[in-house]
């Protein structure tokens, strides 16, 4: 858990980060969201001591980070940046093995770990380990960046607009991949972005920053239902409800019973793993009043517009399946 208290950073007369309190729960992904210049990257870089705060404190699992050696602290926090920052003079294998090497692991253990990490991010080690960074596409390079950050199994990940520089299609893949990885690894993640869709899709909780202050720190559902002020409401805009629908899957919705003899083939139907947003799109697209929800070709129940609305009600949980 990361506990930020009264964190402030001034550059001369300019206050980049203004007395921020933030508690990042263990195993959750917390997004720092805000327009450029809102101070989100500065907050991130104060957590791993790449920037020294003017005042305030940061504790990681109860330990004051200013009592730690900066290099050791950073090795326990995976670091992923927008431009990947892969070392062009090293192969992918050496890039991914950087932190284990810094920590003095033996060669065999590093090699095994690198293979494991490349597999984890969906890159075949036999194909990619010997390549050079210049030989990768933007999406591949970013996967390697994530693999490098995870290599020494740090409990914390710091990610600074990690998918900002890749094309939209690759970005969607990487975001889906990120959700899958986080469901599996449950790291404590601090994730900086200015992309609202990305924030709402990935976050357990979002801290919305403006001018170095936190406007609201809540789950996306709470930001939508209970915005703290007009800025929060207008920042997320009219589409936030739809974005929230993309966070939740049909498997979490109470389905209506099936008609006698209903099958997945003839009626308008949808996969149980689809999101609520996809279900809504399918209802509109098929001009249907309801859809049969199917899992592996077996009908489970039906969903209609009213049940979608009901699912988006006040008892909507913040965790997505």
């Amino acid at each position, binding site marked *: 858990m990361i506990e930020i208290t009264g964190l402030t950073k001034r550059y001369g007369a300019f206050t980049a980060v203004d007395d921020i309190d933030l508690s990042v729960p263990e195993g959750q992904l917390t997004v720092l969201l805000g327009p450029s210049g809102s101070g989100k990257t500065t907050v991130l870089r104060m957590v791993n001591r*790449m920037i020294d705060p003017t005042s305030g404190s940061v504790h990681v699992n109860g330990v004051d980070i200013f009592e730690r050696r900066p290099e*050791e602290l950073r090795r326990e926090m995976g670091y992923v*940046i927008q431009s*990947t*920052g892969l*070392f062009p003079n090293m192969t992918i294998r050496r890039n991914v093995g950087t932190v284990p090497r*810094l920590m003095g692991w033996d060669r065999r253990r590093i090699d095994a770990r690198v293979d494991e990490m490349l597999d984890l991010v969906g890159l075949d080690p036999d194909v990619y380990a010997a390549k050079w960074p*210049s030989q990768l596409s933007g999406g591949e390079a970013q996967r390697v960046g994530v693999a*490098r950050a995870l290599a020494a199994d740090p409990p914390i990940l710091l990610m600074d607009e990690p998918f900002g520089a890749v094309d939209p299609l690759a970005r969607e893949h990487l975001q889906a991949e990120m959700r899958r990885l986080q469901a599996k690894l449950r790291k404590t993640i601090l994730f900086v972005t200015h992309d609202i869709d990305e924030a709402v899709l990935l976050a357990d909780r979002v801290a919305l920053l403006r001018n170095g202050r936190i406007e609201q720190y809540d789950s996306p559902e709470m930001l939508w239902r209970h915005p703290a002020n007009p800025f929060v409401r207008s920042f997320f805009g009219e589409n936030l409800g739809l974005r929230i629908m993309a966070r939740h899957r049909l498997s979490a919705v109470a389905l209506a019973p099936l008609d006698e003899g209903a099958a997945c083939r003839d009626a308008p139907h949808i996969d149980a793993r689809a999101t609520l947003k996809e279900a809504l799109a399918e209802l509109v697209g098929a001009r249907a009043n309801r859809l049969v929800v199917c899992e592996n070709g077996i009908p489970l129940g039906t969903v209609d517009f009213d049940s979608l609305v009901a699912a988006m009600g006040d008892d909507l949980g913040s965790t997505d399946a």
Partner: protein
Amino acid sequence: MRDARASVTIHWASITALFAAVVWMTFDVAGFERLLRLLVPGQDVVTYPTKALPLLMAEQLFLTASASGIALVIGSALGAVALSRVGLPFRDLIVSAGSLAQTVPTVAIMALIIPATGYGARPVIVALVLYSILPIMLNVIAGIDGVPPDVSDAAHGVGMSPAQRLIWVQLPLAMPVIMGGIKNMLIINVSAATLGAVVAAGGLGMPILAGFHRYNNAFILQGALPAMALALLFDRLLSSPNAGATAAAEA
């Protein structure tokens, strides 16, 4: 790929040829003499009588190597200081001092320091060092400055110490630029070391100077040809086989 392989072959062939030329001119007295007679017909004496070529070549290499070695150490150190947090405010000053040292003619430097150092190798080495610090220092600074900021940032963020950042990331990436500076310095020094003859430091400048005094072009060629071959050899040795080959390896 085929072009790249061909140019690598040419690269090593030219290194071999230049090395053979240097060795041949240095040690095959009779053979080199035949070449000089061919190039300068009608000259009775074509071989510089005072010192043998192997000794002159050794002196030349000694002057070049010691000046280049010292300049490399001082230039790199000054470059490192200019890049460090302490030296950053003085960076312009350090670079200007290096530029100033290079504006003073080498001969003038030698003349000015002879009262302090006496005649011989020392004034030449000092003059060459003063002259060589700037290219080394500038290339060290340019090389490290040229490391992409995101790469340095990542090195910082994954937990490398300043020394680890330098050794693992910044120096390897700056190396092509730094090697370019070393190459230029060596080429300049191997030629400029012929000035050593003026202050009795020996070297391949001796036959050149003698040829100048005695109107003997053969003597001049006897000093100049090995010096040129040596400079070309250094140039080839410190160049990458070719840019195309590097690009092909990365593609």
